C-alpha cells in the first residue's frame, strides 16, 4: 500500500487489495471486538425495515384505494407516508449503514473496536429520538419540512447519538494501523461528516429568525438530497468497493478511476439539492447550478460503474454462487441505473413533465432500495457469519429473499416511474380538457403494480428477518465456508 504514496501512479494501476494483507487471526480478533455494536445496529435497523415495510404497503394500498383505513387518523396517507420515508431512511438506512460503516472502518483500519459502549449509547440515543419522532409523526406532530418531518426535539436526540458514533469513528480512524486509507474509507469518512452537517442546518434554518419561507424549503431539499445522494450513496458505494473485490478475490480494477469517481462525487453530489424545487418559487440560478452539478455527476457514474464492472470482469458467474456478490452487484447496477435516470430527470425538459408525479418517488425508491438496501443486504450476508461464528442456514432462504427484494423492489420502482410518466404526459397535453382527477386515473393500473411490488418485498423481508434471527440464535451451518447458492465450479448447469 505504501507504494501508492511514493511513486507516480500509472493510470491502470490496480488499487491495493483491501485488508487481505494481515493474518486471519488478527481479522478474527477485530471481528470479535466489533460483534456487539455491529449486531446492535443491524438488529435495530432490521426492526425498522420491517416497520417500514408495513408502512410502505399501507401507503401503497391507500394510494390506490383512498378509503382504506381512512377512519383511523394515525394511519391515513398524510401520516403514514412521512412515517414510511422517515423509518426507511433514518431507521433502516442509517442504522444498517452505520453498522456496515463501523465494521468496515475497523477491518480496513486494521484496528480493534475499543469502547463499544460509546457506539451502543449513541445508537440508543438515536433509537429513542427516532421512536419519539415516528410516534410524533403518526400523531400529527411534524416540522412540516418534507423529508425532515421528525420534530426538532427528537431530532436533537438523534443528532447527539449520531455525534457519539462519529466521534468514536474518528478516534478509530486516528488509531488505525493501516495508514493509507482504502477507497471505501474515503467514502465512509465523507458520509460521516456530511450527514450531521446538513441535518442540523436544515433544522436550524427552520427555527432561526429571519430565514424567509422558501429558504427553509431550499435548505430542507438540500438536506434531503444530501441524505440520499451523499450519505446513503457513499455508504453503499463504500460497501460495494469493499465486497466485490473481496469476494472475487482480486484488487479493484483501477485506483485512478476510483480517485476521479470519488472527487467528482464529493464535489458535485452536494450541489444537486435544488433540483427538487425545479420550477418552484426559488431563484432560478440555484436550480441551474443544481442541474449543472447533476450533469457533471456523470463523471462519477461512468468511473464508478466502469471500475466495478471491470473488477468483476471474467468473474460474472460469481453472481450464481455468492449471495454477497449477487446482492452487491445488483445494487451496483441499480446505482448506475438510478443515477442515469436521476440525471435525465434533473433536466428542465424532463422535470417539467415528471415533477409532482410519482416519478420522483420511483427514483427515490430505486436509490434507497434497489441500490442502497441491496448492497447493504449483501454486506450483511458477508459480515454476519464473521460476527456470530456460523454460516447462513439455507441458501434457498437467501435466494427467496433475493427474488422478493430484486423483483419486488424493481416492480415497485418501475410502477412508480411509469405512473409518473403516464400522469406527466397526459398533463402536459395543452388542450387536454380532462379534469385533474381524470388524468390521475391514467396512473391507477401502475399503482396496483406498486402494491404487488410491496407484497413481494414484504415476503422477502419476512424470510430475511427469520434468517437473521436464526443467525443470532446461532442456528446455521458450521463456520468456515460461506453458504453459496451453487458450489463454485458447477456454473455450467446454469
Amino acid at each position, binding site marked *: 500500500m505504501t507504494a501508492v504514496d511514493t511513486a507516480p501512479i500509472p493510470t491502470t494501476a490496480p488499487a491495493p487489495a483491501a485488508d487481505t494483507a494481515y493474518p486471519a487471526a488478527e481479522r478474527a480478533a477485530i471481528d470479535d471486538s466489533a460483534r456487539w455494536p455491529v449486531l446492535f445496529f443491524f438488529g435495530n435497523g432490521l426492526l425498522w425495515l420491517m416497520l417500514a415495510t408495513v408502512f410502505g404497503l399501507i401507503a401503497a394500498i391507500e394510494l390506490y384505494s*383512498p378509503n382504506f383505513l381512512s377512519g383511523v387518523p394515525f394511519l*391515513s396517507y398524510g401520516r403514514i407516508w412521512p412515517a414510511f420515508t422517515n423509518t426507511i431512511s433514518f431507521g433502516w438506512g442509517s442504522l444498517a449503514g452505520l453498522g456496515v460503516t463501523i465494521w468496515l472502518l475497523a477491518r480496513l483500519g486494521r484496528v480493534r473496536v475499543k469502547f463499544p459502549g460509546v457506539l451502543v449509547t449513541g445508537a440508543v440515543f438515536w433509537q429513542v429520538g427516532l421512536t419519539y419522532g415516528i410516534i410524533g409523526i403518526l400523531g400529527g406532530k411534524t416540522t*412540516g419540512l418534507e423529508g425532515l418531518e421528525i420534530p426538532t426535539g427528537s431530532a436533537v436526540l438523534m443528532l447527539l447519538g449520531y455525534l457519539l458514533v462519529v466521534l468514536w469513528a474518528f478516534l478509530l480512524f486516528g488509531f488505525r494501523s493501516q495508514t493509507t486509507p482504502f477507497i471505501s474509507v474515503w467514502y465512509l469518512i465523507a458520509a460521516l461528516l456530511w450527514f450531521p452537517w446538513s441535518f442540523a442546518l436544515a433544522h436550524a434554518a427552520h427555527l432561526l429568525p429571519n430565514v424567509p419561507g422558501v429558504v427553509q424549503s431550499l435548505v430542507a431539499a438540500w438536506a434531503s438530497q444530501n441524505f440520499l445522494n451523499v450519505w446513503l450513496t457513499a455508504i453503499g458505494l463504500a460497501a460495494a468497493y469493499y465486497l466485490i473485490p473481496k469476494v472475487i478475490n482480486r484488487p479493484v480494477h483501477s485506483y485512478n478511476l476510483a480517485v476521479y469517481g470519488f472527487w467528482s462525487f464529493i464535489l458535485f453530489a*452536494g450541489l444537486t439539492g435544488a433540483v427538487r424545487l425545479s420550477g418552484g418559487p426559488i431563484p432560478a440560478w440555484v436550480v441551474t447550478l443544481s442541474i449543472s452539478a447533476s450533469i457533471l455527476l456523470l463523471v462519477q457514474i461512468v468511473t464508478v460503474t466502469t471500475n466495478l464492472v471491470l473488477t468483476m470482469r471474467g468473474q460474472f458467474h460469481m453472481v450464481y454462487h455468492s449471495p454477497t456478490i449477487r446482492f452487491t452487484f445488483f445494487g451496483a447496477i441499480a446505482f448506475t441505473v438510478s443515477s442515469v435516470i436521476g440525471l435525465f430527470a434533473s433536466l428542465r425538459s424532463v422535470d417539467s413533465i415528471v415533477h409532482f408525479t410519482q416519478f420522483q418517488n420511483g427514483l427515490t425508491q430505486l436509490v434507497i432500495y434497489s441500490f442502497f438496501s441491496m448492497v447493504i443486504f449483501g454486506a450483511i450476508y458477508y459480515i454476519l457469519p464473521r460476527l456470530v461464528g456460523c454460516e447462513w442456514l439455507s441458501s434457498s432462504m437467501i435466494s427467496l429473499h433475493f427474488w422478493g427484494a430484486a423483483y419486488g423492489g424493481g416492480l415497485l420502482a418501475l410502477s412508480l416511474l411509469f405512473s409518473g410518466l403516464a400522469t406527466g404526459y397526459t398533463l402536459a397535453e395543452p388542450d387536454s380538457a380532462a379534469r385533474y382527477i381524470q388524468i390521475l386515473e391514467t396512473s391507477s393500473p401502475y399503482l396496483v403494480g406498486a402494491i404487488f411490488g410491496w407484497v413481494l418485498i414484504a415476503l422477502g423481508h419476512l424470510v430475511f428477518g427469520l434468517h437473521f434471527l436464526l443467525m443470532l440464535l446461532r442456528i446455521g451451518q458450521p463456520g468456515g465456508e460461506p453458504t453459496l447458492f451453487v458450489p463454485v465450479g458447477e456454473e455450467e448447469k446454469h
Partner: protein
Amino acid sequence: MKRSTYLLAGIVGSFAFSTFALVLVPQMQLGGMQPQFAEDEGKIVDIYPIENRGIVEAGREVYISEGCVYCHSQQVRDEQNGSDLERGWGVRRTVARDYLFDSPPLLGSSRIGPDLANAGSAKWRNEPADENFGYKPAKRDEAWELLHLYNPRVIIKESNMPAYRNLFVERKISGQRSDDALDVPTKDGWEVVPTAEAKALAGYLLSLDKSHALKEVKTAAAEVVAK
C-alpha cells in the same frame, strides 16, 4: 502532508462550498425580503403578503398535522414548466415573496390532488361548483369545504381523497339542531358537526390566494376555468 489530511480537507472544503452555494447565498439574496407595500398619496393602502394569524395559522397547523402537503402542492409554475397556468391553477407563477411568512412554506412535491396555491382566490371560490351529485352548493364556500373534507365523493364522484371523518363529531341533537351541522344523512335525532380543527382548516383553505399582483412577476391576462 499526509494523504488522509488531503482527504479530510477535501471533504470539508466540498461541503463548505455546497453550504455556501445552496444555503448561504440564497439566504443573503432573500433574507432581507419585505412584503410589497402599495402607497397612495403617502398612505399605505395595500400590503402583500400578510402574516398568518388566527384561524389561518390554526388551520395551517391542521393542514401540516394531517399531512395534506403529501398530496397537494401550493406552488404554480410558469409556462415553461408544465401546464399549471393553462389548467387555471393560478394567474401567475408563485415567487419567493408569496411565502415570506410561511415557516415552513407548504410547497409540496407531489400532486396526488390538485394544486391549492389559489384554492381561496375569489375566482376559485365563485366558480360554479362542478358536476357534483346530491349536493349543489352555489359556490366553494365554507360549507363546500367542510362537506368535501367529511366526504369528498359526495361532491366529486371520482375523488381519490380520503375522508377526514376524524375532524367531525357525530352527536345527539340536544335542543335545536346546530347551525354548523352538515347536510349529510345520519341517524335520526343525530347531527354531524365540524370540530374546531375542521373549521380552522376550511378557513385556511379559503385564505389561500396567491393571485395578488407582484412587481417581480408578470400576471397572465387570460382567466382560465380551473380544471
